[in-house]
C-alpha cells in the first residue's frame, strides 16, 4: 500500500536470517514517523495547546493579560491603601504628587488618592465587567444565532431582521442613554446593559458558522447513519463552532472594557465610588493641564496593556483552535 507510512527496513548485516528479520521489523516500527503518535494520539485540546505555545505573540499577550488579572485580583488586598478610607497625605498638594517610592504611580490631584491603588481596583472591576458582559453576550448570541442557523426558514428571517435593525442604531449612544437612566452608576447594571447589547455580532457569527457547518458532508454522513438531531448539534456542529465562538468572546472582552471605559469617562457609566479604569480617567481629565499626567497615564496604560494582551491572545487562540493548522 503506497500511501501508508513506514520507513524501509534497515539492513542488518552479519546476523542470521530470523534475527535480522525481527530486528529490521522493530527498527522499522520505531523509525516510522508516527510511532509515538500511534501509541498516544493527542487529543484536540492538547494539540491546540501545543500550537498556542508556539505562537509567540499569543504567549506575550497571555502573559500581559494574566499579569493584569493577578494585579486586579490580588492587588487590592496587598495594597497598603484602602479605597474606602480618605487618604491622609503627609504633604498636602492639591495638584497631586508625581511617582515616588511610597506612591509608585503618584497621587491624584485634590484628595491625593494613591493612583496604583486606584488602578488595581479599576483593573479588577473593568475585567469583571468585560468578562461578565461578554459571557452574557456570548450566551444570548449563541442561542439566537444557533436557532437562526440550524432551523433557518422564517425564524431565521425574523431573528436576523431584528439583528439587522439593532445594528443600524448607533449602539454607543443607546448604551450611553441606558447606562445613564437605568445604570445609575451601578457596575452590575452597566455590565448587564453591555451584555444585552453586545450579542449582535456573536449571533451573526454563530449563525454563519452553523449555516456552513450544516451543509458539511460529515453532517450528512451522520444523518445518513440515523444519528439524531440533538447529537448532531452537540457532537458535530457545536464543537466545530466552538473555536470561532471562543475567539469572538475573547475579543469581545477587550471591546467591552474599552466601551465601558468610554462610557465611564464621559460620566455615564459606573459611578466614581467604584473605580473602573474608565472613571479613573474621567476624574483625571481636568488636572492633566496642571501637569498631573500620572493620574491619566497609568490607568490609560492599564487599558492598553489589557486590550493588547487580549487581542494577541485572541489571535493566538484563533490559530491554535484550527484543527487543520500544522503543529
Amino acid at each position, binding site marked *: 500500500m503506497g*500511501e501508508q507510512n513506514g520507513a524501509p527496513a534497515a539492513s542488518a548485516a552479519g546476523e542470521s536470517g530470523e534475527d535480522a528479520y525481527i530486528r529490521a521489523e522493530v527498527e522499522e516500527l520505531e523509525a516510522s514517523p508516527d510511532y509515538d503518535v500511534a501509541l498516544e*494520539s493527542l487529543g484536540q485540546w492538547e494539540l491546540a495547546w501545543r500550537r498556542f505555545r508556539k505562537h509567540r505573540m499569543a504567549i506575550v499577550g497571555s502573559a500581559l493579560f494574566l499579569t493584569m488579572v493577578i494585579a486586579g485580583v490580588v492587588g487590592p488586598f496587598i495594597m497598603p491603601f484602602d479605597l474606602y478610607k480618605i487618604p491622609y497625605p503627609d504633604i498636602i498638594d492639591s495638584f497631586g504628587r508625581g511617582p515616588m517610592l511610597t506612591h509608585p504611580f503618584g497621587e491624584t490631584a485634590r484628595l491625593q488618592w494613591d493612583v496604583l491603588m486606584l488602578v488595581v481596583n479599576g483593573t479588577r472591576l473593568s475585567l469583571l465587567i468585560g468578562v461578565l458582559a461578554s459571557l452574557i453576550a456570548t450566551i444570548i448570541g449563541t442561542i439566537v444565532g444557533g436557532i437562526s442557523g440550524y432551523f433557518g426558514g*422564517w425564524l431565521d428571517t425574523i431573528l436576523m431582521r431584528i439583528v439587522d435593525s439593532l445594528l443600524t442604531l448607533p449602539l454607543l449612544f443607546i448604551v450611553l442613554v441606558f447606562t445613564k437612566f437605568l445604570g445609575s452608576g451601578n457596575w452590575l447594571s452597566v455590565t448587564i446593559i453591555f451584555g444585552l447589547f453586545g450579542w449582535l455580532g456573536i449571533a451573526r457569527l454563530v449563525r454563519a458558522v452553523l449555516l456552513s457547518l450544516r451543509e458539511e*458532508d460529515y453532517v450528512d*454522513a*451522520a444523518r445518513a447513519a440515523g*444519528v439524531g438531531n440533538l*447529537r448532531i448539534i452537540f457532537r458535530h456542529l457545536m464543537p*466545530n463552532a466552538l473555536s470561532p465562538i471562543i475567539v469572538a468572546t475573547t475579543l469581545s472582552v477587550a471591546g467591552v472594557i474599552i466601551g465601558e471605559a468610554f462610557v465611564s469617562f464621559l460620566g455615564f457609566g459606573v459611578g466614581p465610588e467604584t473605580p473602573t479604569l474608565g472613571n479613573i480617567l474621567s476624574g483625571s481629565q481636568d488636572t492633566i493641564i496642571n501637569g498631573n499626567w500620572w493620574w491619566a497615564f497609568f490607568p490609560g496604560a492599564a487599558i492598553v496593556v489589557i486590550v493588547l494582551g487580549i487581542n494577541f491572545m485572541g489571535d493566538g487562540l484563533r490559530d491554535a483552535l484550527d*484543527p487543520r493548522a500544522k503543529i
Partner: protein
Amino acid sequence: MTQPASSAQPQASPDAGRPLLEIEHLKTYYPIRAGIVRRTVGHVKAVDDVSFQIRKGEVFGLVGESGCGKTTLGRTLLRLEKPTGGEVKMDGRNILAFKGNDLKALRRRIQVIFQDPVGSLNPRMPVSDIIGEGLMAQATPENGWSERKTRDRRTGDFLEVVGLRRDYARRYPHEFSGGQRQRIGIARALALDPEFVFADEPVSALDVSIQSQILNLMSDLREQFNLTYLFVAHNLSVVQYISDRVGVMYLGKLVEVADVADLYAHPRHPYTVALLSAVPDPDPRVRKKRLVLHGDVPSPAKPPTGCRFHTRCWLREQLGNPERCSTEDPAARDMGGGHQVACHFAEQVSRSVAAETIQGVIAPRAQEPNPVVAEA
C-alpha cells in the same frame, strides 16, 4: 479480482439480478423563492421523472455533466433530500414514505461514500467516533453496538477491511492522506452492514495513482459484502471500469440505460455519443472526431420543451430539425437487451457517421483487461 465490466451475468448469490431498488417517476425539485415574503416563483428540476431499477449485486454507474442531477438523485435515495414525487421501492415498500423507526432501520441498509475526503470526516472526532457514531445510532439488543467495546472492535475490524491499521482508530482525520481518509469513509459506510451504497464521485477528488486503489478496494468489498453500488462519476473511464450497467443523465432526465459493454460500444442516444467522443484516448496515434456540443446546458429551472437535449443535439441538426424533438418529450424505449433510450430517433444514431467513429475507438477498449484510469 474479477473484471466487473464484463460480468453482466448474475452473480452466485441466488437473488442477484433481482431489483433491489425500483425507482419510479422520481422527482426532486427545489423551489426558487423571490421577494420579501419568499414566494415560490419556480422550481429547479434537479431530478425530473426518472425511472430505473438497480439490481441486487450490481454496480450501477451514473454519468452526466455537472449539475445534471446525479448527486441529487442519490441523495434523494438516501433520504437526505425531500422528494417532490415518485416512488422508490425496496422489498416492495416505498422507502420515500418511511418515517421514524422504519427510516432509521432503512438508514443502516443504505449508506453513502462522499466525494470530498476532507469534508466528509468531522475534524474534531477521532476515527473511532467517526465510525462508531453510526453504530451507536443503529444499536439494537441483537448486535450489541451500544457497548463501547463491541463498537471499538467492529471499528478496528473495518479499518482492517479497508486496508488500514486498527490503531488508526485513535487518530484524527487531519493525520491521514486523502486516500486514507477515503478508506475511512468507506469503513464508516460498511461498518453498518449496508446492502446498498451510494458512492458519490468517490474517486474524483483523489490523486490518479490512488484512484485505482480505491476503485479496486470498492470492487473487492462488493464481492466480500454482497453490496450493490450506485456509482456516480463524470469520469467515463472510471464508470466503464467499475460498472455493470450505466445510466446517462442530462438535465434531470435519464436519457439512456444499458449494460456497460453495450453502452460504450453502441451508444444509442445522441448525448451519450457526444459524451463518449470526449473520452481522451491514451494512444496519441488515434485520430478521432470529437463531437463538440454547442452552447451551455440550459437552466434546469427552465428546461427546453420536448426533448431536453434538442437545443444542443447534433442528430437533430443532421436530420433537418424535426419538429417532434421540440414538442414531444421522448419516452424511454427498450431497444432490446434492456437497452433503454429516450430519443425519438435513436435508430438513426447507429447509422450516423459520428457514432461509427465513436464505436471504432471505444468498442475495443471495453474488452481490455485493465483500462487506464485517467481524468476525463
